[in-house]
């Protein structure tokens, strides 16, 4: 059991959860993730480690409640507990030093980006963060990002804040080939794919943090497999970060849709049980 120390809503559907995890707090590095089961009937789901506190012996994650398990997680009360939490999993994000770095994220990915962008900055890079949100009220962790990077730009789909459009359009509007030497992208698959396409000839090394469906997260099932440069990789142990220009995003898109119907049904059952409207 893992005790929940704090919970905060950051945006519609997006919650921050701070939990007690003394060992993970000590050992995690930006880019790593954990797997949780909110209740002892739940699925195992992966979540990125966003932050940690040595003083509170805790780690923080930011969850977008999109399906049954993520909803179960954000419905737990402070001082309640997650049934399971294991980690830190995966490899740390690739770091560099003394470079011009662009970090891009969309949606809840903005939270997942924060530790990586910060680490790039702390390692002596000049970091530009380009963050996307559906609308002004969906923007999250603005203060933390501002403090952690050299330049922060927002794009909103409806133009209610910053650039009107998506993150990749924003990228193209402010930069071109040669502008950045290294980059990191995390978020919805179409966005990561577009970022890879846009920068293919930019001479930019772009790392994408992938989010395939996972079960064990320890390299045991192969469910998280992705194709990178024609080779099959297990994202939970070989990744989750890979060379964005080599990832087969179309395959990842298809594989992540595999259980769509089932998930909709599970959510419906859950909503009925707790008397919620699915919409």
């Amino acid at each position, binding site marked *: 059991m893992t005790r929940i120390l704090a919970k905060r809503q950051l945006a519609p559907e997006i919650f921050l959860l701070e939990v007690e995890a003394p060992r993970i707090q000590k050992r995690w590095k930006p880019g790593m993730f954990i797997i949780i089961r909110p209740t002892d009937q739940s699925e195992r789901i992966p979540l990125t480690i966003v932050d940690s506190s040595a003083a509170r012996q805790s780690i923080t994650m930011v969850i977008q409640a999109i399906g049954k398990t993520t909803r179960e997680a954000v419905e737990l009360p402070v001082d309640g507990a997650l049934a399971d939490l294991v980690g830190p999993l995966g490899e740390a994000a690739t770091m560099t030093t003394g470079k011009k770095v662009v970090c891009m994220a969309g949606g809840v990915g903005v939270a997942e980006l924060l530790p990586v962008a910060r680490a790039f900055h702390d390692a002596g890079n000049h970091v530009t963060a380009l963050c996307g949100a559906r609308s002004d009220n969906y923007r999250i962790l603005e203060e933390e990002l501002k403090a952690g990077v050299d330049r922060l730009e927002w794009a909103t789909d409806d133009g209610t804040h910053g650039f009107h459009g998506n993150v990749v359009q924003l990228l193209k509007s402010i930069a071109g080939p040669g502008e950045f030497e290294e980059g990191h992208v995390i978020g919805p698959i179409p966005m990561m794919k577009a970022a890879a396409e846009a920068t293919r000839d930019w001479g930019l090394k772009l790392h994408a943090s992938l989010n395939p469906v996972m079960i064990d997260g320890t390299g045991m099932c192969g469910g998280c497999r992705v194709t990178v440069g024609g080779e099959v990789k297990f994202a939970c142990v070989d990744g989750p970060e890979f060379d964005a220009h080599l990832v087969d995003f179309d395959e990842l898109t298809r594989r992540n849709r595999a259980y769509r119907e089932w998930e909709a049904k599970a959510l419906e*059952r859950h909503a009925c049980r707790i008397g919620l409207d699915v919409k």
Partner: protein
Amino acid sequence: MEEKKPKFKPNPKLPRQALPVLNAEVRATSASEVALGFTPEQVGIEAQRCLQCAKPTCVDACPLHIDIKRFIIRMVENDFQGAHDVISEQSPFPGVCGRVCQHELFCEDACIVAKKWEPVAIGSLERFAADHARMRMRELTAEEPAHPAGKKVALVGSGPASLIAAYDLARKNYRVTVFEALHRLGGVMIYGIPNFRLPREILKEEIARLRHLGVEFVTDFIVGKTATVEDLFEEGFEAVFIGTGAGLPYMMGIPGENLIGVYTANEFLTRINLMEAFEPEADTPVLVGERTIVVGGGNSAMDAARWGKRFGSETVVLYRRGREELKARLEEIEHAEEEGIVFHFLAAPVALHGDERGFVQEVECIRMELGEPDESGRRSPVPVPGSEFRIKAQTVVAAIGQAPNPTLQKATPQLRTKRGKIVIDEWGATSMAGVFAGGDVVRGGSTVILAMKDGRAAAAAIDRALNPQAEVAAEEVTQ
């Protein structure tokens, strides 16, 4: 120990009793246990078939050296509790071993009766003793657990290798902690072997015996990630046993293997066993279409195929060699056949074809011939050119073997390995001081009983390393 002469007349000529099983049609649609266990009458007959040999070869052949002869005589006397006590001297897992041990390769293979007739059904007798004792075991484990006060030993992984080591060490007063990566205990016995072969309650209850001895279990803890081996020593553990198993699945390496509906046996079985996808209300899904093709011929292949059948799928096992070469337990092969699973021998997949949404639709196969025997003496399959054919399937399960779990090794580079397997000496010691290993992580995939054999050997080695005086004292006594 002085043994009473048996008061009965052994009669090995009596027919070996067949293990009663659930009707094949019923079981092909349910998750209930297939084998039902002997009736008391059958136990009477079967136990009487034992010759009570002066030199019981069966005992030597059992890797745990269970005193088979002595537990059988208890059963002849209808003292099933006594039989269970005899087994417990060596093993706390008769319910597990009586069900999944490959006894045809061990105790039963060595049984003298087999020279003329069929061997005594030792496995099924062991199972009966376990099932009979379950009620009492439950009462026992409800009592206050023991509090060992000796040195601290860490066991990594909760598969059979670690579990038997925990039993042996806890009985010697060591403070034992088992660290398990997953959220449930048992290793392959929980995520790989299906409920219909090994009911979860049996496994849980036998693990509860260890808790009762004071063994601590920590789930959700990956050694190499959550903490390193070095951290464990720093935290006061004086020896570490690595029983992390061989859980890394091999991929087929053919086009289309990332199509939706294509699983490794590990993923397919984990979804169903560990995450209980067979339950209608389960959150973790598994896709089982009208036809399932399972590639491989080992225990994983049989288990995946039999689950496929239980999901109502027409199931085909595709194996590149012949029936004689199947590596699964004989009983499981026979049960699979009874359940209507179709076997295509001497055939292997070469490509998988899907629809535009990425769901698998067809398996392209090629026929095989058995060629010359290789170094291991096994005739290796050779593809027959131009013999390609296609089978429709919406689910494909690759059960073609596993390699050792690499996580701990990756974080512990000083640990000597060979092709991923941890290298040990004859006592189970690794290249790192105080670190021992055994089971599939050393063997690269074997059986429950051999993993237990390793765990037991390592526990003895750990005891010798941490408590050298005891050994000297023991030697003095025997001299």
